[in-house]
């Protein structure tokens, strides 16, 4: 299906993409995840043919698409600002791609009607798009992108312009629509919740490089490096030094690891202490992973209490199943199997 190979791209004279390679298989939903300015939108624009890479290739079913004009690619792209044509009605917007593809009048009419029905907006056909709400615009934009039956659908932060409540609601709808369409999808976002909810596979883009690729579970359980863990908000990251295959040294003290790390002995790394894995005031399996801590803050979150604790000069976040009072000194610990040391 889609294969991009060793894509390089400069922006304002600075390298933005530094050799990106990945594939998208039939019916697969891939999320391109990265912070703003990481070049993920540019990656989409290169696949769509709106921008040319400095070097590298884009293949579709083995055919080199790198020089192919946008309108001959048959890919769909939904813009973050939707780019609905303000001088055309809802129906005319959805019909645009079909009309440009040279479909017959009757065919266009029936397909537009179907598309409007699928987003439950039949009554909106003749409305100007400038009068739609944000959520309605998002639906029309998706319907417009899907109407010409593209081989590949790309979405650039499709929920980015909406407020939080609407996002949660539309995310569910989007998930269903994208899976029902059976199309390969590349979904660009900076929001890991969206990515986890939608993706078959995640691609994490950082400083022009793909730093990790894999299913949401894999990425969550085995982040490739400290940036991934921090970007996904997996937990506390503490600077550490690997002193032996199963032992790290930090400002908080020494920690034992169950699995030996691939990191070279003696080099610096980041120790990931996940809040949900913390054992608060329990019996740690190994006393060396146990720390005395002062409670700074405690917030009731429903299923647990979110604590902020001070260990020496370091502030950590941990989850506690039972209430503790602020100012109290408690002991927190992590079992050996819950700890990971990640390259920086």
């Amino acid at each position, binding site marked *: 299906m889609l294969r991009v190979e060793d894509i390089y791209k400069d922006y304002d004279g600075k390298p933005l993409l530094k050799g990106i390679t990945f594939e998208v298989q039939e019916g697969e939903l891939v999320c391109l995840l990265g912070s703003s300015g990481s070049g993920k939108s540019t990656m989409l*624009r290169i696949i769509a043919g*709106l921008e040319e890479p400095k070097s590298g290739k884009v293949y579709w079913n083995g055919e080199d698409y790198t020089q192919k*004009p*946008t*309108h001959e690619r048959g890919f769909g792209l939904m813009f973050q600002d939707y780019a609905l044509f*303000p001088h055309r009605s809802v129906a005319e917007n959805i019909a*645009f791609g079909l009309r440009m593809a040279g479909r017959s009048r009757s065919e266009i009419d029936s397909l537009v009607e179907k598309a409007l029905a699928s987003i439950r907006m039949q009554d909106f056909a003749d409305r*100007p798009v400038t009068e739609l709400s944000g959520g309605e615009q998002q639906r029309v934009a998706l319907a417009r992108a899907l109407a010409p039956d593209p081989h590949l659908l790309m979405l650039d932060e499709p929920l980015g312009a909406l407020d939080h409540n609407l996002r949660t609601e539309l995310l569910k709808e989007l998930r269903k629509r994208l899976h029902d369409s059976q199309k390969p999808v590349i979904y660009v976002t900076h929001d890991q919740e969206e990515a986890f909810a939608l993706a078959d596979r995640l691609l994490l883009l950082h400083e022009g490089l793909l730093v990790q690729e894999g299913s949401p579970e894999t990425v969550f359980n085995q982040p490739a490096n400290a940036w991934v863990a921090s970007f996904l908000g997996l937990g506390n990251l503490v600077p550490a030094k690997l002193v032996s295959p199963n032992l790290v040294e930090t400002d908080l003290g020494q920690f034992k690891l169950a699995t030996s790390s691939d990191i070279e002995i003696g080099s610096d790394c980041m120790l990931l202490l996940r809040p949900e894995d913390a054992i608060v005031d329990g019996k740690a399996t190994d006393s060396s992973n146990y720390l005395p801590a002062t409670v700074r803050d405690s917030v009731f979150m429903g299923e647990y209490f979110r604590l902020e604790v001070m260990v020496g000069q370091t502030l950590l976040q941990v989850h506690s199943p039972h209430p503790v009072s602020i100012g109290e000194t408690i002991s927190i610990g992590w079992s050996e199997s819950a700890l990971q040391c990640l390259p920086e």
Partner: protein
Amino acid sequence: MKRSRSLTWLLWLIPLVFLLYFFYQPLLAIFRQVFSERFNQGWQFFSWDQISRPLLFTFWQAFLSTLLTLLIGLPAAYLFSRFEFTGRKTLHTLSLLPFILPTVVVATAFNTLIGPRGWLNLILMDMLNLSNPPLNLLNSLPAILLAHVFYNTSIVIRMVGNSLTRLNPHFDEAARVLNAKPWQAFREVSLPLLMPTILGASLLVFLFDFTSFGVVLMLGGPQYATLEVEIYTQAMNRFNLPMAGLLSVIQLVVTLLITLAQNRLKNPRFGKAALSSEQKTRQRPANRRQKLFVILMCLLLVILFVSPILSLVSRSLVTFEAARGERGEFETGFTTRYYSELFINRSGSIFYANPLAAIRNSLVYSVLTMLIATSMGLLTAYALSRLGSLRRWLEPIFMLPLGASAVILGLGFLLTFNRPPWTSGPFPILIPIAHSLIALPFVVRTIMPAIQGIPNSLREAARVMGAKPWKVIREIDLPILLRALIVSLAFSFTISLGEFGASSFLANARTPTIPVTIFRYISQPGALNYGQALAMSTLLLITSAAGSLLIEKIRLPGEELF
């Protein structure tokens, strides 16, 4: 409270009385002239041909000029808003310059390029060894069109370029992703979104071409007369005031209609949604076709905008006196004589116009205009932004002077104030007053947004803290308005310095202005007259360009001048 209301009344009464007396009274005089003649003598004083010929020609040349202006202006607007290249800013500033250049300067500049004593003919005479200029491009329709294109391309670049820059590039890209070929994306999406702006700019260009006076008078010659030129000829050369009046009425009606149409186009219904991009739209030309486009457009614009200016300046510093008797032989060389002659007080023939006096007069008129126009404009802008329900009725009264041409104003002044004390007074105050009326709409349009931009809460806060009404103005309004006021001062000064239409009616041999003197010099034979006209034009060019650059520098972005 009561005191401040009486102050408001006074505020809008001053400019209202000024306009009624100096604008509407002369306008009324023109109408009275026409209709009294009509009732006294029937329609005998004119033949249809006398009206239809200039009217049709005015429409025809304005139509052609607008078409040509769009032909160059639209690609130029595209060039500046979509491409990044070395020298872009300089070329952009240069291409916006002509709008404020005085008509006599533009006409003189083209004279030095394509006229019988211009560079083109001099070069051809030298190359082909001829004794007479081979090309007669002056006094022709192409000369008029060329000058109009030079003038108004800047309007298209400014207006359409502005819209293009703000047009979200995602629309075009979305169309191309939805299977549209590049030209289809342009036709189906970009063009319809830009159409209101293009139409608005076209109408404005048409209006300026329609009311063009100095350019047509100086480059068109006797056989090409627009309505404006015909009004001038009838009034000043044939002394047929009723005819001039009738032509003025026709001219007023047509310009009013165009202005109304232009105003209706100002607010397109989807303007906001389409023109709200913060995306970066300019890119370096990527492929060979784009590079070729950029190079060719730059070349065209440099030729169009730079060659007349360079031609004027260089020709004013070079002498080409034909040595008598010898064919094709010239004394050539660098000279500053044309400039130094300006400051030597010679007299002799009755045609003699004293350049030094003209420069002095023009400077005095400009300073007066600057003061009158800015103070009247300030009062008008305040009145318009403070009056609630009355505004609907008063705004057209205040804004109408923009539609009236300088020539009609000149004619109206001639009809109304051609009597003591206006004519016998020690100082010709009428000229700065006419100039102020011409500058007033620009001044109001500059100051008004600044006044409306001051939130009332600032004034209220000052009042609550104990500031008296005049203190509020001094402490709050004036500092905020300062920038707009400086622009207004520079604007009215520059307009007055280059004004030709009204001055050509009002400035007599005793009170010449620089443009009027340039016009007299250039229509007389003799190398020295020609050279002095060029020298004066160059000085005027430099002053106007400096004024225009100053305005561009301190003007806030987003303030529309038209």
